[in-house]
């Protein structure tokens, strides 16, 4: 008995190959973003700890506390207050923590969207 393949077999095979290929790419990217998130978290923990220590060591908390106690006077001397706050802020720890925080948010959001894409290709 002669069996002929269904006419859409070729298309189905190609579609399956394409989706497997995409799934593979997604898996690779998932690993990349998972690694990115893990690195960001592991870097953020000591960085935030250091940032807190540096903030305590500087006058930043004391100067910014004036915002709550003497708001009107702070507004009246806004230029000096702003400069004072910038001068006392530990800029390097803030910048480093900021960079890794942004990297963590970016990696996590990409990871979540890739998980959703992977679900689509799995079905």
């Amino acid at each position, binding site marked *: 008995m002669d069996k002929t393949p269904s006419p859409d077999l070729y298309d189905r095979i190609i579609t399956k190959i394409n989706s497997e290929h995409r799934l593979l790419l997604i898996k690779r990217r998932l690993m990349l973003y998972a690694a990115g998130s893990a690195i960001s978290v592991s870097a953020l923990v000591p960085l935030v700890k250091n940032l807190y220590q540096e903030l*305590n060591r500087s006058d930043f908390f*004391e*100067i910014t506390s*004036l915002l709550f106690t003497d708001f009107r*006077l702070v507004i009246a001397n806004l230029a000096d207050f702003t*400069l004072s706050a910038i001068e006392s802020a530990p800029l390097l720890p803030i910048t480093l923590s900021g960079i890794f925080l942004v990297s963590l948010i970016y990696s996590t959001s990409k990871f979540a969207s890739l998980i959703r894409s992977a679900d689509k290709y799995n079905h």
Partner: protein
Amino acid sequence: MELKLSKFKEAFGGENKLKFKKPIAILAGSVVLLLVFTVGVFVGMEKTRFSYRWGENYYQNFIGERGRRVPGLGRGDRPGMMPFGPPPLDDYFNAHGVAGEIISVSMSVASSTSTLIIKDKEDTEKNILLDGRTIIKNGRQDLKPGDLKIGEKIVVIGAPNEQGQILSKLIRVQPENFFNEYLK
């Protein structure tokens, strides 16, 4: 106004929106970077200038013009203070504000100004000048320069002058427990 808005939408909306998105983002990013850089340079210059003047006027501000010593300052009277002259600078000082403990109060009747010397968290002395416009607050009370006492913890906002002092505009006396955690 309506016409201008529609022209703007025509030029930058629709398909053109995508075309302009990248250059606008690059331009905005460059402006922000330039702004941050400019602020950084300005703040750095202010700190450097103040630190230089602080060192230049150290003897006059803290030891006294005729070699008169301010009690508790210089010559190693206090732990952390340098025994001879200004301490070497590890970092530049904040020029517009400082928090610390008052270690000396002196009033000048002739010039109607007062001078405070405070010790900051790094055990460095700062000379704070008070004039008639300086506002001193303790809780909700307004204080006079004469009400400030040695040992009180204060936060100062002001502007640096040519003598390496901070001309104070606002002084807030902090409650004792506020600093206990941080300033030791």
